[in-house]
């Protein structure tokens, strides 16, 4: 009999198609937007994670600044020494540490003939060790890595083309690097970086344009008075490090901070008192991205909830109208043997069917809306970067579809309870007399 009552409630919906559709719209919008948000969110999140994982997920940056949340690193403060680097390499969960000597360049020059120069304003050069390439996951396409103490650099593909795409710099070419202090160093290009396979926005940010050894390019010194003899010690503002594995990133971070703040470190002596040592891990950045994404999706979900509540009120409203309109019919059904429970079920089925259909159509709209948004984002990604060949893969999270459908039914039931009770409680005598 329940089956028959169920089909009777379908009849009622079928006989008022436009009304049913209009009632559905509210629920469809609500559920559709939840699905769009979760689909876009899941897809973009996995895209970002994928991008970050290209360069080492165990990586971290060590700097000097303020240890707030989020931490701030000041690039102009210098405190770390080669001694610190060597000591930190020995820490149990630290795999490698590399200096990142930032060298802002005035220009990169090319000698094209006698007294004929071509000069391009240069960006930043990184004076470092080969360890940094491992940390960042960078590979060399042509040539080899620079050697410490030699006037050698490895350049990126885009730098190789700054003097024209038609005559790119080759391994073995000589260029002149002019530091911000005016000093020009004659340099040999010994290697060209490989462009990362899934070259992405994010790897581009940290891709090294020009990388060379600390000596002879980097010159940031402390005067250290040891036993009356003035000694010059190289100091760095930024270091980069890796942990043994993903699980020990926090351990490595804590060990590094403990070392730096201990009396054994040089850095504690050279840093000004108001600054902190700051370690920013790749995982931390990832968790921040995660946080921003979840705040955004919560916001949109909240809006979706409002539209679901409005949709629910719409269902309740139309159900009340239906119950009133069918008063005489309800009276008739009671007269021919329908129990109050039958009438209750009849209208509850009807409202939950609206909810169910809203859920299903909402899922369909949401799935296509999500696919559309990812497509738009992918087009945008393609447009903004010649370097960006990364694509967001469309990922549907099936659990949200199930939640959405169940939620749709739930809204239908909740919205239908009062109207259905009103119908079930009718006095058959009065209902039969209703005009």
């Amino acid at each position, binding site marked *: *009999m329940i089956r*028959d*009552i169920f089909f*009777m409630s379908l*009849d*009622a919906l*079928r*006989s008022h198609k436009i009304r049913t559709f209009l009632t559905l719209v509210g629920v469809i919008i609500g559920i559709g937007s939840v699905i769009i948000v979760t689909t876009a969110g899941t897809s973009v999140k996995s895209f970002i994670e994928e991008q970050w994982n290209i360069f080492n997920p165990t990586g971290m940056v060590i700097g000097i600044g303020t240890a707030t949340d989020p931490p701030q690193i000041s690039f102009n403060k210098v405190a770390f020494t080669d001694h610190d680097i060597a000591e930190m390499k020995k820490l149990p969960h630290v795999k490698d540490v590399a200096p990142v000597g930032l060298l802002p360049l005035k220009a990169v020059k090319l000698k094209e003939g006698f007294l004929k120069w071509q000069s391009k304003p240069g960006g930043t050069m990184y004076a470092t060790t080969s360890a940094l390439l491992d940390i960042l996951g960078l590979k060399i396409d042509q040539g080899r890595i620079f050697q410490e103490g030699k006037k050698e650099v490895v350049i990126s593909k885009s730098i190789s083309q700054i003097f024209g795409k038609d005559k790119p710099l080759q391994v073995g070419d000589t260029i002149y690097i002019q530091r911000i202090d005016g000093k020009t160093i004659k340099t040999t290009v010994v290697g060209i970086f490989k462009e990362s396979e899934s070259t992405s926005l994010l790897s581009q940010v940290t891709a090294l344009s020009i990388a060379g050894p600390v000596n002879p390019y980097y010159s940031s010194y402390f005067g250290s008075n040891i036993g009356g003899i003035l000694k010059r010690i190289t100091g760095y503002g930024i270091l980069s490090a890796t942990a043994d594995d993903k699980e020990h990133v926090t351990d490595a971070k804590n060990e590094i901070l403990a070392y730096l703040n201990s009396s054994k470190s040089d850095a504690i002596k050279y840093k000004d008192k108001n600054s902190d040592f700051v370690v920013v891990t790749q995982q931390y950045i990832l968790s921040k991205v995660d946080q921003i994404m979840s705040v955004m999706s919560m916001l949109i979900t909240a809006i979706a909830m409002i539209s679901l509540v409005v949709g629910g009120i719409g269902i309740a409203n139309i159900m009340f109208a239906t119950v009133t309109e069918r008063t*005489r*019919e309800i*009276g*008739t*059904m*009671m*007269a*021919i*043997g*329908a*129990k*109050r*429970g*039958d009438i209750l079920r009849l209208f509850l089925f009807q409202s939950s069917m609206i909810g169910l259909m809203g859920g299903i159509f909402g899922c369909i709209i949401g799935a296509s809306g999500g696919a559309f948004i990812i497509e738009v984002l992918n087009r945008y990604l393609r447009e903004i970067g010649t370097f960006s060949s990364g694509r967001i893969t469309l990922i549907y999270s099936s659990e949200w579809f199930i939640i959405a459908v169940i939620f749709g039914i739930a809204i239908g039931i909740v919205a239908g309870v009062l109207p259905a009770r009103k119908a079930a409680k009718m*006095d*058959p*005598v009065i209902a*039969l007399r209703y005009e």
Partner: protein
Amino acid sequence: MHWLLDKMPKEYIIETHSVTKIYKMGKQEFRALNGVSLNIKKGDFLAIMGPSGSGKSTFMNLLGCLDRPTSGEILLDGERTSEMRDNELAEVRGKKIGFIFQTFNLVPTMNALRNVALPMVFGGIPRADREKKAHDLLKKVGIENWATHLPSELSGGQQQRVAIARALANDPLIILADEPTGNLDRKTGEQVMKLLSSITKEGKTILLVTHDHSLKKYTNRVINMIDGRISGRA
């Protein structure tokens, strides 16, 4: 005399004893029925007549288990319906009573066949059985060719025939017909009355509520009501 008492309940399918019904409207009381006692025999085609406000519809509602009396007793097939709960009343209505209304009251979204089968849905009869029976009933009232039509596609007379078939669906003890010809033209009304009359000849009991005196000729017993009382028998 004991042997007679044993037989009595079987003869009277409905007995009412001093039934009253008082409606309260705010602080005012309205006495719709003022002590009605009536027995109805199996096979009766009984007409209750009276002007509007005489209490005839109220009385029919009580007999039809749509409502409970304020005081007094109603026995339907020996069962005391005057003190039943809502669900029990619904079950009695479904199994023992067939209703025919002035306004037909068919479910507009269902075709004729499904309308006739509807009481059997609530009675829990399997689909195949009730469809067969509904079909037989449509044949009996002479509109089997209209089985798949919606009420809106049928004439008034045809709709009332569907309603009569529906009233017969659960083999009721008694059929309550409230002004069944009120919305029909004279000729169609006569056809409907002839149909009802032929049904009583098969042993069904019908209680007709009307103020149309021309319908008396189809019945075998007439009761006049006025001011909530039975005023006389014709």
